[in-house]
């Protein structure tokens, strides 16, 4: 009975998160889904994963979502859909019906029969399993977290294309200031930025096109 109530509550909160028009409501319903999922995982006998799900799903991810939509400044979601709504319903109902047909005992034994009462396998405890037997997973997790942090820093830092091009321009200006008396015949970079006379306008334009590519290296 507890499982039934929990499952219904999880599906309801997930559906509410999916249908909510405001992003803050999406985030809160998602956190509720995560917390209820943690309770269900605990009831299934997985307390360690339940704790991780509760702290990460209901805590960290919620903060991330609030952070994201506070930066973008967009708080509402358009109701329009990518595909026609009837097509989406048909596809989803088809998938759920196939899954239900596999799970439910429609005629006799279901195809994906869940047999309880099997003899419990002898396995090490969670810590030994995670650190000794699944040690590679831990390494992969560390790499993933590192990649995630680096990706986040790379994406959210201010060193975008604008910053780099401004820096290149600054370097070009500095190079020009260091050599103010260069003859334009010796160096085509001469008349690019500082054009003292207007006689070589076409040369200056051509040099202006060429200089940023040369300064890049």
């Amino acid at each position, binding site marked *: 009975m507890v499982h039934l109530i929990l499952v219904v509550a999880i599906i309801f909160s*997930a559906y509410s998160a*999916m249908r909510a028009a405001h*992003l803050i409501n999406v985030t809160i319903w998602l956190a509720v889904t995560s917390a209820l999922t943690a309770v269900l995982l605990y009831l299934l006998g997985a307390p360690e994963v339940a704790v991780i799900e509760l702290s990460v799903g209901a805590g960290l991810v919620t903060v991330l979502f609030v952070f994201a939509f506070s930066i973008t400044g967009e708080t509402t979601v358009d109701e329009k859909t990518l595909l026609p709504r009837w097509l989406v319903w048909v596809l989803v109902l088809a998938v759920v019906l196939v899954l239900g047909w596999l799970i439910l005992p429609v005629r006799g034994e279901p195809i994906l029969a869940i047999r309880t009462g099997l003899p419990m396998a002898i396995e090490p405890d969670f810590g030994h399993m995670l650190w000794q037997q699944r040690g590679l997973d831990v390494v992969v997790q560390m790499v993933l977290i590192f990649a995630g942090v680096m990706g986040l820093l790379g994406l959210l830092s201010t060193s975008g294309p604008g910053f780099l091009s401004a820096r290149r321009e600054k370097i070009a200006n500095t190079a020009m200031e260091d050599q103010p008396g260069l003859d334009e015949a010796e160096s085509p970079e001469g008349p690019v930025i500082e054009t003292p006379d207007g006689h070589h306008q076409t040369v200056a334009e051509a040099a202006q096109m060429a200089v940023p590519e040369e300064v890049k290296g």
Partner: protein
Amino acid sequence: MTSLSPMNITMLGVAGLLGVGLYGLLATRNLIKMVAVLQILVKAAVIALVLAGRVSGRINLSQSLAATVIVADTVVAVIGLALAVRVRQRFGSLDLKDLSNLKG
């Protein structure tokens, strides 16, 4: 039809969550909401994984796998949200329809 065991009910819950997530993935056009929908889908996968471990009697193995899935999912959420922020800064919109107008 026999009465449903808690395991069957949980499995039905997994199917329902997958349905909700699939609907959201096909219907939503907002990038941030799409990341939220992916979270729902992964929750269904985590519950199914733990359920499989419980049924087969190898709950600790399934827990360690589920922990890896949760970490990977969180990293996906982080990168997805950061991408959404950059897309909003560059194109001024989070709508997928606006992104499909890109020209090579």
